């Protein structure tokens, strides 16, 4: 059925040429569209795309600098750094959300031996950070095997990087943890706050303690690695344009490492011995040591403590919970622990009364074991002792409560001289130490304070004579609202209690150290400082930090001498309350025991000591919660610290004085 070629040839349609022309026009239009689009992309807006392409290919990876060291006054290391193998994730390089990404999480979790949900949580928490290429720290101190395994199988772990990073290291562990502070990733709020301005999201910064106060000096400047990476995020070319990180400057402090260590040993010893005296465990303690002539802090500590290194790397929930479970281990009790101070307040009472003319050096009073004011308010010496009538020095030496009860009663009829003196010496206001918050203010109670307290509570909890719904279940609120106040109005009894450091009085160990420093140094009320100098990484002086400042108060030298005599007697005269502890101490010591009474639990032990050394004067305030009498726990702890300070043999010498 082969046709002849001529027959086979179908006629060409007449409009062929025209239709070919139309086809040609269609093609020209298509090419025109593409041509204009290319012109637009490459010639008109090409520059922008070039910048975008560079951002894709050359990835800046921040190199965090080592944080500056924190040193004690002799150059001993309190906080340094070490190098640790780290596994981090660049969220943008992970596979898209879904099974592929979960697979990477699971694989990584198996290698690292952690839960994959944890990895997801870490990435999700920081994925919002604006520069998407900031690697998110997943794990520091990765076991060597896991680190190598991941590094050699990059294709199995897209978005995962292994690298060496600088990690904060606290060689002393628990010692001084709360003073040095914690590190943590910068928070969203902090990003906009002044000390952190310019710091990239995801950076680890100081969150408390000295790490926070001196953040700006310690941080250093991150370097940048410009790394050519492929679509999977792996470097494809040699590192280029590396800008080395600038290590942070060093912070030199006035702390004395030996004294700091001894402080922790001493209060731990006091806590360990507390059950023998009180039958109960002593949960917590704090101490402050400062130079009364310069205002510099020599040691400062708070227990229970925690290992500061736990916060140097991302802390696990378990570790954090364990630290939190320890009675407020993260609170710096030395500056923020507010307590009644017991008899350590008596020198303040004495000065206030002397200034107001309520007593003189010759005033003799306090006989009897109890004194009664009005008809019902009866106040007694501890253990019912009767010291007979004593003068001021004797009253301080033996801590005679009845003497000060009478002073307190007399002062209540005057214009609050005790309160004025306490405030003058720094109680009731923040000491302004160079730690976040500057130290708590505490309370110096008076009639106005009770009124304000009542007004505040009633406004907060009461609607008329009934509690607001939120407080309906509180018996306290029901009572307070029905009677219109929380606390009865100021009574003479309150002032009597204040005279012995009880009642509503609240002060921190730091405030007591500052107050005693002012008494012994002639009236300089310090804003104490820990930071001293800023040194370059190589140790050259960069900046002398501002010296501690003080407020000068009027302190009559005669009155000062009287109180000092009382304090010296209390420590080193045979009738003194802490004679058992300091009577044999080879240095001149001024000191005062305190025993703060807490309803329903063992007493809180206080001791504030002053050692007048021409070169190394020191004031130490120690308190041990539920530690028993001042002479039993705090005084021997103070002795251990003073022994350390003066290089003397260290012995635990507890007294048995039951004076408050």
């Amino acid at each position, binding site marked *: 059925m*082969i046709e*002849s*070629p*001529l027959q*086979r*040839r*179908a*006629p*060409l*349609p*007449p*409009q*062929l*040429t025209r*239709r*070919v022309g*139309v*086809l*040609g026009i*269609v*093609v020209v239009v*298509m*090419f025109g*569209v*593409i*041509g204009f*689009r*290319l*012109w637009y*992309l*490459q*010639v008109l*807006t*090409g*520059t*922008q*795309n*070039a910048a*975008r*392409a*560079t951002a*894709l*290919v050359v990835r800046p990876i921040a190199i965090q600098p080592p944080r500056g060291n924190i040193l004690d006054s002799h150059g001993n290391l309190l906080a340094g750094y070490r190098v640790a193998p780290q596994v981090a994730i660049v969220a943008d390089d992970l596979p*898209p*959300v*879904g099974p592929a990404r979960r697979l990477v999480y699971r694989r990584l979790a198996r290698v690292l031996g952690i839960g994959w949900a944890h990895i997801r949580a870490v990435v999700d928490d920081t994925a919002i950070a604006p520069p998407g290429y900031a690697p998110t720290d997943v794990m520091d101190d990765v076991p060597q095997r896991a680190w190598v395994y991941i590094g050699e199988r990059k294709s199995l772990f897209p978005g995962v990087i292994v690298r060496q990073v600088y990690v904060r290291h606290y060689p002393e562990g628990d010692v001084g943890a709360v003073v040095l502070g914690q590190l943590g990733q910068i928070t969203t709020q902090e990003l906009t706050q002044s000390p952190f301005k310019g710091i990239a999201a995801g950076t680890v910064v100081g969150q408390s303690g000295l790490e926070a106060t001196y953040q700006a000096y310690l941080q250093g400047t991150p370097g940048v690695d410009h790394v*050519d*990476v*492929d*679509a*999977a995020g792996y470097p*494809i070319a040699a590192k280029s344009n590396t800008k080395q990180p600038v290590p942070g400057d060093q912070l030199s402090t006035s702390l004395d490492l030996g004294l700091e260590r001894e402080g922790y040993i001493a209060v731990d010893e006091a806590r360990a011995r507390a059950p023998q005296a009180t039958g109960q465990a002593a949960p917590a303690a704090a101490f402050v040591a400062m130079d009364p002539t310069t205002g510099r802090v020599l040691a400062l500590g708070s227990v229970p403590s925690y290992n500061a290194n736990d916060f140097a790397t991302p802390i696990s929930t378990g570790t954090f919970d364990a630290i939190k479970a320890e009675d407020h281990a993260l609170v710096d009790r030395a500056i923020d622990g507010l307590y009644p101070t017991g008899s350590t307040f008596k020198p303040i009472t004495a000065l206030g009364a002397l200034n107001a003319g309520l007593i003189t050096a010759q005033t003799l009073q306090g006989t009897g074991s109890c004194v009664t004011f009005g008809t019902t308010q009866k106040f007694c010496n501890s253990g019912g002792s009767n010291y007979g009538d004593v003068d001021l020095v004797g009253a301080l030496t033996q801590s005679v409560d009845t003497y000060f009860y009478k002073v307190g009663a007399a002062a209540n009829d005057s214009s609050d001289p005790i309160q004025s003196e306490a405030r003058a010496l720094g109680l009731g206001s923040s000491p302004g130490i160079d730690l976040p918050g500057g130290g708590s203010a505490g309370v110096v109670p008076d009639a106005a304070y009770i009124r304000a307290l009542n007004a505040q509570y009633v406004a907060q909890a009461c609607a008329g004579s009934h509690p607001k719904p939120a407080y309906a279940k509180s018996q306290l609120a029901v009572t307070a609202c029905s009677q219109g106040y929380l606390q009865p109005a100021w009574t003479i009894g309150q002032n009597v209690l204040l005279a012995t450091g009880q009642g509503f009085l609240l002060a921190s160990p730091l405030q007591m150290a500052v107050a005693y420093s002012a008494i012994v140094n002639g009236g300089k009320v310090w804003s104490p400082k820990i930071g001293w100098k800023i040194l370059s990484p190589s140790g050259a002086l960069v900046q002398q930090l501002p010296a501690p400042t003080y407020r000068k108060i009027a302190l009559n030298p005669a009155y000062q001498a009287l109180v000092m005599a009382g304090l010296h007697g209390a420590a080193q005269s045979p009738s003194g309350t802490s004679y058992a502890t300091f009577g044999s101490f080879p240095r001149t010591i001024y000191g005062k025991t305190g025993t703060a009474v807490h309803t329903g639990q063992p007493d809180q032990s206080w001791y504030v000591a002053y050692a007048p050394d021409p070169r190394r004067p020191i004031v130490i305030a120690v308190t041990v919660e539920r530690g028993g009498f001042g002479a039993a726990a705090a005084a021997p702890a103070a002795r251990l610290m003073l022994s350390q300070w003066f290089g003397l043999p260290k012995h635990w010498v507890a007294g048995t004085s039951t004076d408050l």
Partner: protein
Amino acid sequence: MATTVIQTPKQGRDPATLAPRAIRIGLDPILTVAAIALGVASIVTLGGISHAQMVRQGGYLAVGLVAMVVLSRFDYSRLRELKWGLYVILIGAILVVIAIGKSIGGISTRSIGISVFSFQASEVGKVLLIVFLAAFVVDSSRKTTGRQLVARVMLLALVPTMLVIAEPDLGSGLVYIAAAFAVLYIAGVEAKYLAAVLALGVAALALVLGVGPLVGFHTYQAERLTAFLDPGAVPASQIKSALYQQQQSLTAIGAGQKFGLGSVATNTAANFVPLNTTDFIFAALAERFGFAGAAVVLSLYALIIWRALRIVAAAKNLFGALIAAGIVAMLAFQVFVNVGVAVDILPVTGVTLPLLSYGGSSVLTTFLALGLLQSIHAQARIAAGTKGRVLSF
């Protein structure tokens, strides 16, 4: 038409085949040079991405070139008699691919694995379908009305189209439709029927992409289209996969600027642009050689299409004109869609860029098409020589 010199051929052979040898060496020089130039562009571009692929592409191009020359020596007119055979091979190959074919990129099955090289039936099917449709139109044109012809041609084209779309290879399916449309158009079918076909096609596309997802159609195609039309409507994670290719491609192309980044071009080389040697090779080209390089390559395609249109007009018979028209549509459509996707004016469809994209099936298919064009050109020259037709460039 000019009068023929030979009135009564004795052996039933076309006199054209008896023409002097000198005239029979009739490769269109511009077409040939442009094709070789595109092959060089492909090798240069691939060289910046993958040495192994560049070497293999060189092999494919050489084989393709030989195939083109060989094919140009045959009289395409013989293929008319084989039209049903070609159609059966076309459908059969696609079915085999669907049945036993292996997956490329984990999603679609487009090729039959033959140990040496995996063969994509849908690619070579383009040429097979064009020849078949041209033959079918020629054989039916005197027997059927325009309406019937259009209906039959479109139905016959739709069978392989639906099959390759089911693979799924939407791109090849669209090429089939475009080629069928061009064949009908050049065959002189009335414009109203073509308009109706066009309307049907748009409706079908809307159905496939719009309703398809509801009845289990591969979601990645619908996703790409949705992401292209309205990036805000797709969840971010899916946008990343659907729009990622195009975004990266745009960035790379733009980065090329006027004269390209040359060897510094790393976006495409570093795999930021997926499929950077196949569907998105244009991005690699435009990044390395800039607007200038892209314009040169597009000009080469324009040259080829111009020559092909000339061949349509000069073909010695309708069969040749229709084959050439189908090939014009195939090449122009693939260039337009492939580059259109790369420059983000069309949704991602998965069409190769003729001669540039890495891949044996695509290269061979294009050279077979060019070989057919050369054959039509040669036959036209011979016929013109014997018939005294004037053939001008």
